[in-house]
């Protein structure tokens, strides 16, 4: 038995994120790059550390290499610890057999042994696909105060949006009376953020029961939560206010990146009281050249800019040659952009080379959609990629 921890966080990071297309071709969604020098998983991990939760299990399944490598021993988040720290938990073979994670609940079920090693009173379930800052400790306090069996973080959304979310109907005391998954006629606007705190013993019981049920799809939202509600368990909503964004689609990923820009950005990365930690590379300082013009943009270490950059987020090591124009775009790590190339309303994934004079994407106002160029590609000089196009190796082969 390891040293007791009051609360263990379990971060579900196995999702493929298929709606991010080529961006998740080689990496799991939580490892997708975000905001210049971060990956999506930095946000829940930093939240854990900033909330005083130092035991985090990261459940991986789909394309885990980049994620494993990125998390490493947890040092960037101060999670390289003796009695706790971050652990990557892939599916495994056991004496009684073994299987892939069949659903969110099954993933936690398969790792009950990991949880029990810390003898925790509470388990915090997180997902690795949202951008937000949240003090989980406050949520845990609310959970304890109410004497709840389960607390679910909720966010007020507009009535129109409500039918896209799992909606919690509550009484005045925020006790959950009903849970509706994507209701056509929502009765409330409290959307589940996919963040749960359970009393450990109770969670264990429900997971074991759920596992034994052959008709269950082994999912928290579909099975565990409705079952607990039906049993009359004390379930409370915890109202969160502040920035929260699901970055599961190309559009929302682009929007969330743009939310970082501005005098008063919607999401402030500069907040020193709630730092977002990330693995750092040894890149030199940024160099802004004689002919460069950078405006309303975020630029990261290792960038060398000789061209024009406007309303964009540039990750570390991006090289922009003279005469190139980048507008309303997200350029990921170590991309090189040749002379006179124009990139408009696009996302270019890491290590890709854009040849001189190429035209990527179309203006934002044209409504043609966001052009996406995958990682590690080489676009010949003069390549033309229309707006809204998804470019991967296959696309390049076909359009030679």
């Amino acid at each position, binding site marked *: 038995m390891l040293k007791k921890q009051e609360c263990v966080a379990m971060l579900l990071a196995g999702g493929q994120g298929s709606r991010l297309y080529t961006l998740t071709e080689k990496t799991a969604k939580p490892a997708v790059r975000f905001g210049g*020098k971060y990956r999506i998983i930095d946000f829940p991990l930093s939240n854990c550390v900033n909330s005083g939760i130092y035991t985090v299990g990261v459940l991986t399944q789909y394309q885990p290499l980049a994620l494993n490598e990125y998390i490493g021993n947890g*040092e960037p988040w101060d999670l390289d610890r003796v009695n706790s720290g971050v652990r990557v938990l892939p599916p495994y073979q056991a004496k009684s057999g073994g299987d892939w994670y069949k659903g969110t609940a099954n993933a936690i079920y398969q790792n009950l042994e990991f949880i029990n090693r810390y003898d925790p009173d509470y388990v915090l379930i997180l997902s690795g696909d949202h951008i937000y800052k949240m003090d989980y400790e406050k949520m845990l306090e609310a959970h304890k105060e109410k004497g709840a069996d389960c607390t679910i973080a909720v966010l007020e959304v507009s009535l129109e949006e409500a039918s896209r979310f799992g909606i919690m109907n509550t009484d005045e005391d925020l006790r959950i009376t009903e849970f509706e998954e994507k209701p056509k006629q929502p009765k409330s606007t409290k959307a589940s953020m996919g963040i749960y705190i359970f009393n450990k013993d109770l969670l264990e019981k429900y997971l074991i029961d759920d596992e034994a049920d052959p008709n269950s799809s082994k999912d928290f939202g579909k099975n565990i939560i409705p079952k607990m509600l039906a049993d009359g368990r004390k379930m409370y909503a915890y109202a969160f206010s502040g920035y929260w964004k699901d970055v599961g689609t190309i559009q929302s990923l682009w929007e969330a990146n743009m939310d970082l*820009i501005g005098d008063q950005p919607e999401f402030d*990365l*500069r907040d020193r009281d709630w730092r977002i930690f990330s693995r750092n590379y040894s890149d*030199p300082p940024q160099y802004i050249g*004689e002919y460069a013009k950078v405006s309303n943009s*975020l630029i990261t270490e290792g960038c060398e800019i000789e061209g024009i950059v406007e309303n964009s987020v540039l990750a570390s090591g991006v090289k922009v040659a003279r005469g190139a124009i980048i507008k309303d775009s997200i350029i990921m790590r170590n991309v090189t952009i040749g002379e006179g190339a124009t990139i408009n309303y696009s996302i270019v994934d890491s290590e890709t080379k854009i040849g001189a004079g190429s035209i990527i994407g179309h203006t934002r106002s044209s409504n043609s959609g966001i052009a996406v160029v995958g990682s590690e590609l080489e676009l010949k000089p003069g390549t033309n990629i229309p707006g809204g196009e998804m470019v991967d190796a296959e696309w390049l082969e076909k359009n030679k």
Partner: protein
Amino acid sequence: MSATGIIFSNIHDNNIPELTRMRTVASVPFACRYRFIDFTLSNMVNSNIYNISVITHNNYQSLMDHIGSGKDWDLARRSGGIKILPPYITAFANNANLYQTRLQALKSVNDSISRITDDYVVLSDCDVICNVDFNDIIAYHQKSEADMTIAVKTVDLTPETAKINTIFTSDEDGRVTDVLAYPTNFSGTADISLNIVVMKTSYLKQIVLDAIAHDHNSLTRDVIARNMDRMNYRVYKYEGYFACISSFEEYYRNSMDLLRNSEARASLFSVKNRPVYTKVRNSSPSYYSPTSTVKNSMIADGCYIEGTVENSIIFRGVKIGRNATVKNSIIMQDSIVGEGASLDCVITDKNAVITDKRRLSGADIQPYYISKGKKI
């Protein structure tokens, strides 16, 4: 072949008193996000030297803070790694005189040196900025069967620059024939020492014991000059970029050189497999507002720029207000330049505050210096 690194963190503190009043020369900030020692440490780590001792004598808090456990240089190790050797003053010793020279420093850590088990030692100061593979020097040292190899660089000297350098002359085989320490009337082309010295550990141990017995105090005068006729001392001619920060003006000039000279930047920062490591600070990317104009400048992460920046070096977490103009200047970590302020040829140390509309100007041969935390 294995090697230990020994770094002198305080030698030459006196050369740049402005920047070393509160810190060692090793922890002087340079090039947006580094401290001098980062270059030496990175050179060692990139040359597979993972046993490193840093000898200090005073003002070393900032150095300890910077290095921490050494993990940012991959030097937090169970065996080896980085070790800081502060002055060792025994109880009851009424003599607290600290070392001034490298040989005195080595004598003061004799105990530590006597326990080195690696085959070779690399001695290095901190005020020479370069990106060099020490394995090349060690290989040359082995091939020429030298007793000691000193890295040098051929430069043009004026009497002004000569008097702060050590000049080596050598024959066509590279064997040292003469050494001039801080000559006062020299000008012309010469090989100056990079203060990087390679030798066998056994020879270093012998030198130190010998120096203790004879009360020798100078590596150049008492060891090299005395023994060069009978020992095989060699120079290794380094060809790459280097900056020797021997005065406050040189600090400024070499910083500005990085902006003028893209090759210098590339040969310092963009050498394959030889990155420069530094302490990680988790700054967010820098924000350039629509009102900003930035030209020919190096900028660190965590900055917020609303004004004009030209030919300048901006460290981490600096704020440049609206309509402010910063030209030919070096603004260190977390400093704030107020709205409408105007700076030309200014160096601000960390956490300085320039209030709105303040105008400050130095000259390129004599930049104006604002000390740490000062509000103007």
